[in-house]
């Protein structure tokens, strides 16, 4: 396990341990302030009026009755925003509809009022005349020639002529010759798989508090994965200077990709501008589900050929992803990652980006990859079982390794896929007995991981303790990992460092908390900032000792003469150096600004046992084990937490979760009762095995871990259910009626 692994690395003192998180007490006492917890004097309540139609032309909006209601201080429609720059045009349109409402729940107007009761009443007084248009919510339907078209003129040059205007882009990846490869196969499996749209399901609804002054200065408090992104997008939409808009990130109650975009914020700022008062907006759960980012629903064809020994001779997938009402579904990521775990001579994927009358898809943890992995890993499983082969051995035989040319192009450096497969093979879970109606499934998954713009500022206080300011909202314990890396590098105890998330006025640009980038990229910048501070402290010690800077080194929290020739001086600790900083040149700090590149890719293998009730088709998860490469687990408890959380989100995707639209294009399950995410009684413990294959792109070897964990579970659960039910499940979620129907159909 991780704790033991980290002990093997003798030179780490803090990294690999499990200290209490610095925000722990605030979070367990209710003191932590999330998006909806902030108030301002004179604050108004903002609310949004949403389209009741899936697709409709907005002919007229008359808010005069609402404006006349006592307590209503501002009404905002799209007309208030005017023209916005091209790069934020879709974002603007998604935040507030222009000519057309494009999905059930699309915002069409907003009001700010003195109380929630007045706001509710005012919304009902806004008159909107709609011309209802035909709609389409299914990806395959939307691609048909004749389907209702959402946008004109958005199709890319990559799409063959004659296709529906809803088909926005086509992309193709791979190498080799599929037909030649298939000809060498002893068996070919060809199937179509479908996955439902799922929501990130963060428990905290979107919320913000906006203030906007007549002089163009604005302040925004918001729960987001990236307050610098919020600043830049809102400034562009409202025509503000970025430097005049200060955004402070609240504590964030989950995001999983869904809070990497704006929904309320530009509207709240506009309401605040028009009313001259602070405006607080909080979404209801129904609004979150109807109008914020779910992920794509998909339809995927897979064709894989295999020899009877288990070698894959050719692998093809065609992926169709609907990403809601605007271009940009995550299909490219799905097409690039689909076969990434394998070393293949002949591989090809084709991706289609399709728009439909659904809310615009937002990123969801490894966006695009889980659905692709579900389809591919299901087909591999079917082939392996068809030949009576061990599915782990088949994956090992075909698995990618250092030097493998990835299906998306590059040659891999050191990677951990085979380590996860070997760990899975060795684990007692693999050979544990199964009972009646039970099945075991395994699957692999891959994610790219990113870096991006990052700033860290580290200050040494006069008493020699340290503050770290970083610009990425802490979504799952990252303040603890930054604190640990700073303490490690400086050679001081964990509790001598405090890390905060700085507002947009305090640091330069920071990329959103996404792409599993924070521990990697912010960690890298924290380490570099600490190194800069160490160099400065060595310089100060050298001045005091009257020796060359180069003759001083830093070790265990103190400057020391480097070697006997440097002179004999007792070490000067960080506290001693800090105490005389004013006498040696001024306050001591280190900072680092970087566009972090070189994030290492990450792989996982998941193993799950299920029992399917033959009477009801209901699936019970019996046992689950995650094997994943973390590069270096900085705080193993939170690495395990990422593994467990991703696995369980994937279980929900596999078994329960799905956006259900009626014939009328209206979302039928916009609440947690009917959009059912996994609850504690649905689950067993989620066991984890952390592998550590260091990432050469990070000083401590860290790889992102947050996203990969949601890639394998859809397929692992589907393979287990298929084994238990005795029939291949080709559609997610595998809800009890679907499983039951499949079992009955298989029986004939």
């Amino acid at each position: 396990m991780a704790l033991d692994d980290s002990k093997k690395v003798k030179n780490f003192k803090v990294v690999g341990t499990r200290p209490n998180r610095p925000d722990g007490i605030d979070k367990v006492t209710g003191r932590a302030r999330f998006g909806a917890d902030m108030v301002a004097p004179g604050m108004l309540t903002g609310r949004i009026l949403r389209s009741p139609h899936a697709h409709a032309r907005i002919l007229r909006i008359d808010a005069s009755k609402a404006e006349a209601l006592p307590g209503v201080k501002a009404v905002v429609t799209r007309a208030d925003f005017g023209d916005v720059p091209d790069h934020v045009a879709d974002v603007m349109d998604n935040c507030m509809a222009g000519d057309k409402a494009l999905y059930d729940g699309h915002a069409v107007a907003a009001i700010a009022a003195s109380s929630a009761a007045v706001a509710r009443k005012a919304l009902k007084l806004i008159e909107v005349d709609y011309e209802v248009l035909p709609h389409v919510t299914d990806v395959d339907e939307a691609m048909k020639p004749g389907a209702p078209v959402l946008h004109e003129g958005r199709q890319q040059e990559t799409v063959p002529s004659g296709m529906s205007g809803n088909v926005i882009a086509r992309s193709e990846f791979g190498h080799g010759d599929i037909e030649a490869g298939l000809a060498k196969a002893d068996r070919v499996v060809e199937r179509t798989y479908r996955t439902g749209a799922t929501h990130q399901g963060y428990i905290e609804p979107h919320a913000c508090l906006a203030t906007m002054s007549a002089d163009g200065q604005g302040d925004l408090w918001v729960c987001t994965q990236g307050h610098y992104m919020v600043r830049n997008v809102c400034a562009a939409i409202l025509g503000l200077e970025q430097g005049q808009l200060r955004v402070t990130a609240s504590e964030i109650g989950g995001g999983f990709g869904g809070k990497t975009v704006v929904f309320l914020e530009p509207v709240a700022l506009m309401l605040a501008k028009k009313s001259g008062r602070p405006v607080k907006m909080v979404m209801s759960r129904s609004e979150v589900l109807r109008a914020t980012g779910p992920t794509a629903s998909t339809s995927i064809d897979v064709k894989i050929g295999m020899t009877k020994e288990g070698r894959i001779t050719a692998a093809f997938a065609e992926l169709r992803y609907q990403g809601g009402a605007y271009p940009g579904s995550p299909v490219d990521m799905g097409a690039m990652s689909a076969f990434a775990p394998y070393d293949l001579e002949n591989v090809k994927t084709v991706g289609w980006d399709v728009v439909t009358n659904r809310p615009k898809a937002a990123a969801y943890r490894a966006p695009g990859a889980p659905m692709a992995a579900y389809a591919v890993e299901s087909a591999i499983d079917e082939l392996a079982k068809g030949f009576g082969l061990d599915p782990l051995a088949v994956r090992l035989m075909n698995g990618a390794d250092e030097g493998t040319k990835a299906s998306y192009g590059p040659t891999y450096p050191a990677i951990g896929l085979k380590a996860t497969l070997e760990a899975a093979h060795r684990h007692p879970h693999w050979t544990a007995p199964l009972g009646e109606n039970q099945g075991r499934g395994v699957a692999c998954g891959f994610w790219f991981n990113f870096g991006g713009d990052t700033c860290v500022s580290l200050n040494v206080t006069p008493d020699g303790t340290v503050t770290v300011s970083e610009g990425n909202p802490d979504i799952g314990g990252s303040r603890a990992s930054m604190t640990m890396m700073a303490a490690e590098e400086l050679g001081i105890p964990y509790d001598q460092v405090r890390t905060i998330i700085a507002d947009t006025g305090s640091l330069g640009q920071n990329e959103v908390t996404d792409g599993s980038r924070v521990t990697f990229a912010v960690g890298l910048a924290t380490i570099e900032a600490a190194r800069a501070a160490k160099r400065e402290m060595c310089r100060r010690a050298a001045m005091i000792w009257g020796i060359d800077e180069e003759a001083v080194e830093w070790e265990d929290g103190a400057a020391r003469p480097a070697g006997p020739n440097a002179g004999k001086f007792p070490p000067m600790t960080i506290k001693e150096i800090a105490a005389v900083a004013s006498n040696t040149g001024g306050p001591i700090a280190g900072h680092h600004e970087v566009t972090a590149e070189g994030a290492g890719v990450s792989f996982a293998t998941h193993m799950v046992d299920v029992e399917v009730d033959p009477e009801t088709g209901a699936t019970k998860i019996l046992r689950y084990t995650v094997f994943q490469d973390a590069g270096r687990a900085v705080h193993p408890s939170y690495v395990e937490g990422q593994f467990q959380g991703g696995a369980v989100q994937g279980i929900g995707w596999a078994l329960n979760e799905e956006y259900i639209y009626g014939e009328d294009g209206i979302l039928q399950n916009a609440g947690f009762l009917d959009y059912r995410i996994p609850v504690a009684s649905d689950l067993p413990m989620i066991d984890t095995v952390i592998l550590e294959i260091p990432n050469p792109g990070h000083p401590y070897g860290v790889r992102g871990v947050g996203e990969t964990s949601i890639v394998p579970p859809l397929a692992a659960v589907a393979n287990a259910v298929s084994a238990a039910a005795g029939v291949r499940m080709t559609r997610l979620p595998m809800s009890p009626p679907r499983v039951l129907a499949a079992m009955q159909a298989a029986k004939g």
Partner: protein
Amino acid sequence: MSRIHVTTKINGDETEFLCDAEATLLDVLRDELGLTGTKEGCGTGDCGACSVTVDGRLVCSCLMLGAEAEGREIATIEGMAAGEVLHPLQKKFIEMAALQCGICTPGILVAAKSLLERNPDPSEEEVRYWLAGNLCRCTGYDKIIRAVLETAADMRRAS
């Protein structure tokens, strides 16, 4: 519309407030009394983020009217620690990393405390079913369940 005057006890303190007839207890706690530790995740009783106890009974405060608090004793997350001394569940949740984002944590702690008051020696299954009304999207529940079980064991040893 006249507001309703309510006298109640919250976390041991006599408290009076005025509320609209339709205001939920959650609205009152958060918006009138500034007790924002109790969270709103759904407003329909499905997520448990707003869990409080009323006369010792675990309820979703979004499903109860503020006016119904008259004469009752309410306990929220803000009353769980005794000054700077954390409740054993709070301490264990931090030590065992039983939270990631922390938005569901107040509701889960209130619910778990309520469980341990009724059943000091719950099985894993009993903890899972008791907490089935409290949604957590980050953790997969593993560390939460372990933290509750370990706290129960510690508290039994201590008593």
